[in-house]
C-alpha cells in the first residue's frame, strides 16, 4: 500500500497491519452503523456545510498560524505554530467532537459517552453535548480527576456526568475500558464519542478525518511549505490531523511521544481498546501503565495509522521526557507569550533539542501543532516548579 492510499478510507478498517475492530459482538453493529453513517455524512455536502459553519461561528476556526519569531531567531530555524490552543474549549479535541456530535445527531442518538485523560476531550464532549442538547457521560480515571480538577469542574458545569474510574492505573487507559463498557450497556441510545485516532474501526479513520482540518488549514496558511511537520502524540489525533495535510508533500513528519508513554518507541504490536497497534506491554502481553506528567499523553497505545506510517517509514516517532516538556513550556511562554498544554510542550521540546543538529538542521522550516493551551496544567506545573 502506498502512503497516499494509507490515508484513504481504510479497507476493512486496516492501516497496513494495524487497526481493525476488536470489540465485543454487542458493539459490532454499532461500529458498523457508525461507519455507514460516517461514509454517508462525509459524502453529503450539507454535512460538510454544517460542520464548516460550526467550526467557524462556534469553535473559532480557522485557528491562527503564528510565526514563533523569537524562538526561530534563537534556534536558527523558521518555526510556525498552528494554534489549536485558540480553539474553543482550549484544544484540538473540539474538532473531532463537533464532527462526531453532528454525526450522532444524524443517527438519532441522544447521548454522548466519552473517555478522557487530560479532561480536554471530556470538556469538548460535554460542550458539544450541551450545544446539541444531548446527555453526556464522561469516564475519567480517578488519578486524572485529581490532576485535572479544573476540567472536572468544567464538565460538570456543562451539565455532563463525570464518572470516576477506579480500576487499574486510574488513568486514560482504564477510563477507555470503562467508557466502552458503558457504551455496551447503552449502545442503542448513545454514541461513543471517542477522543483520539484510536479505538475500533471506523474511529481512527473518522477521527483523523475530523482532525485533518488542522493540517489542511496550516498548509493553506503557511507562506513557505514546511520541511518538517511536528506534533505530539497521545492517541495520535492531533498528529494524524496535522500529518493528513502534509502526507502528500516531501515534508518529514515527526510525532513526539512522552518518554513514559512511547508506544512507538518502546511498544510492540498488540490489541487493546478495539484496535491493533503498537502498545506498551509486558512479556506476558499485559498492558503497561504509561507514566507521563501530561495526562493527555499518559496512554500506552497509539492510533493504528501512526503504527502504519511508522512501519512505512513515512513518519518518525521520537520521545521527550517530563523535564524537557516542562522546560519547553516555560521557554515558549517567555519567548512567544504562549502558554501551551503540557502535551503540546512535548512537540516544542523536540524542536528545542533537535534544532541545529542533524536531526533538524539549521535553516529548516518547521510547522508545529500546538494542540492545546496550558491553563489546565497550571496546578501540575506549580507542583513541579515549587
Amino acid at each position, binding site marked *: 500500500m502506498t502512503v497516499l492510499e494509507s490515508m484513504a478510507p481504510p479497507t*476493512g478498517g486496516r492501516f497496513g497491519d494495524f487497526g*481493525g*475492530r*476488536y*470489540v*465485543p*459482538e*454487542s458493539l*459490532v*453493529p*454499532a461500529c458498523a452503523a457508525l461507519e455507514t453513517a460516517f461514509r454517508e455524512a462525509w459524502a453529503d455536502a450539507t454535512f460538510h456545510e454544517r460542520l464548516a459553519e460550526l467550526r467557524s461561528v462556534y469553535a473559532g476556526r480557522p485557528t491562527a498560524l503564528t510565526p514563533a519569531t523569537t524562538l526561530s531567531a534563537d534556534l536558527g530555524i523558521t518555526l510556525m505554530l498552528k494554534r489549536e490552543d485558540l480553539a474553543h474549549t482550549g484544544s484540538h479535541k473540539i474538532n473531532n467532537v463537533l464532527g462526531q456530535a453532528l454525526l450522532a445527531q444524524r443517527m438519532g442518538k441522544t447521548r454522548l459517552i466519552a473517555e478522557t485523560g487530560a479532561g480536554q476531550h471530556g470538556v469538548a464532549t460535554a460542550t458539544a453535548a450541551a450545544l446539541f442538547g444531548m446527555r453526556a457521560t464522561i469516564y475519567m480515571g480517578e488519578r486524572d480527576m485529581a490532576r485535572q480538577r479544573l476540567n472536572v469542574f468544567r464538565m460538570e458545569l456543562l451539565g455532563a456526568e463525570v464518572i470516576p474510574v477506579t*480500576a*487499574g492505573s486510574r488513568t486514560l*487507559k*482504564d477510563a477507555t*475500558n470503562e467508557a*466502552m*463498557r458503558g457504551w*455496551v*450497556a*447503552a*449502545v*442503542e441510545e448513545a454514541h461513543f464519542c471517542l477522543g483520539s485516532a484510536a479505538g475500533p474501526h471506523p474511529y481512527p479513520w473518522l477521527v483523523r478525518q475530523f482532525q485533518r482540518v488542522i493540517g489542511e488549514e496550516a498548509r493553506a496558511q503557511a507562506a513557505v511549505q514546511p520541511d518538517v511537520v511536528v506534533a505530539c502524540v497521545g492517541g495520535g489525533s492531533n498528529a494524524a490531523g496535522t500529518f493528513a495535510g502534509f502526507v502528500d508533500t516531501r515534508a518529514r513528519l515527526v510525532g513526539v511521544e512522552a518518554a513514559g508513554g512511547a508506544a512507538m518507541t518502546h511498544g510492540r504490536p*498488540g*490489541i*487493546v*481498546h*478495539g484496535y*491493533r497497534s503498537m*502498545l506498551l*506491554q509486558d512479556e*506476558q*502481553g*499485559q*498492558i503497561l501503565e504509561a507514566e507521563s506528567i501530561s495526562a493527555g499523553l499518559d496512554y500506552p497505545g497509539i492510533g493504528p495509522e501512526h503504527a502504519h506510517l511508522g512501519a512505512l517509514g513515512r513518519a518518525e516517532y521520537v520521545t521527550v521526557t517530563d523535564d524537557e516538556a516542562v522546560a519547553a513550556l516555560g521557554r515558549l511562554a517567555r519567548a512567544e507569550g504562549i502558554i501551551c498544554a503540557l502535551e503540546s510542550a512535548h512537540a516544542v521540546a523536540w524542536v528545542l533539542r533537535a534544532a541545529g543538529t542533524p536531526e533538524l538542521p539549521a535553516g529548516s522550516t518547521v510547522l508545529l501543532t500546538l494542540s492545546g493551551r496550558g491553563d489546565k496544567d497550571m496546578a501540575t506545573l506549580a507542583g513541579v516548579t515549587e
Partner: protein
Amino acid sequence: MKRLYPYLTGGITEDWTDYLLAYQEAGADAIEIGLPFSDPMLDGTTIQQASDRALRRGTTVDAILADLAAVRDRISVPLFAMTYANLVFRDGPEVFCRRLAEAGVSGLIVPDVPVDEADGLSAAAEAAGVDLVLLAAPVTPPERLAEIAARSRGFVYAVSVLGTTGERDELAGTAAPLAARIKAVTDLPVLIGFGISRPEHATAAARAGDGVVVASALMRRVLDGATPGELLDDVAALRAAVDQADQEVPADHAHAEVSGDRG
C-alpha cells in the same frame, strides 16, 4: 440435559485448581477458565477484580496452563479458556492454541475477537483441535447471527444482555429471544451467559437455551473468601436449578415466561 458451565478466573488463589475440582464435583458439564488480562473490556467489576487479584499474585498464562496440566488427569469435564485478544495474539494464535491444547483445554472464547476478525484465529484453533466459541448478542442482526452460528465451534455463546459481565437482579428480557434466534439457525448447543446471578435465573435461562454460563456470581464468592467446599455448594445449587428446567414445560412456554421480565 441442560448444561451448566461455571467460570473461574485462573490463578485467583494459590490453590485455584481446587475450585475446578469442586465445580466438577458439584456437577459442572464444562468449566470456563479465565486467563486474566489487564484490560478486560467486556467484564464488570467482579471479574475485573478477580483478574486484578490474579495478576497481582503474579499469575501468567503459562503458570495457569502449567497448573492445569498438573490436575489434568483428575478433570474429566471439558475446559474452555476465556481471555482477550492481546494474550491470544501475543505470540501468534497458532502458538497460543497449541499451548491450550497441550494443557488439556479444548475450547476458547475471546470476547474482543468478533467473527469478522476471527479468520486467523479460527484456523489456528481448528489446527490445534481447539473449539473457537463465538458470541452472539441481542443486537446481532439475522444474517450475521447465521454466520456466527455457522463459524462457532463447541457451542454458541448467547450474551444475554447489552452490558458487561456482572450480577443483575433479573435475567435480561433479551436473553430468551436471542437464544431462540440462535437455536433457529444452528444445531450447536446455545449457552446463555452474562448476569446469571441466582438459581432462578439459571432455571429460566436454561429453559430458553441449552444451558448457562455463570461467572460473576461465583467469582464474587471466591473474592469474598469462600472455600472450594463452599463453592461446591453454590455450584450444586445452580446444578439443581438448571436441572429443574429439564423437568418442565416446552420451550415455547419458557420463552414467554422469561420474556415476561421485559415489561
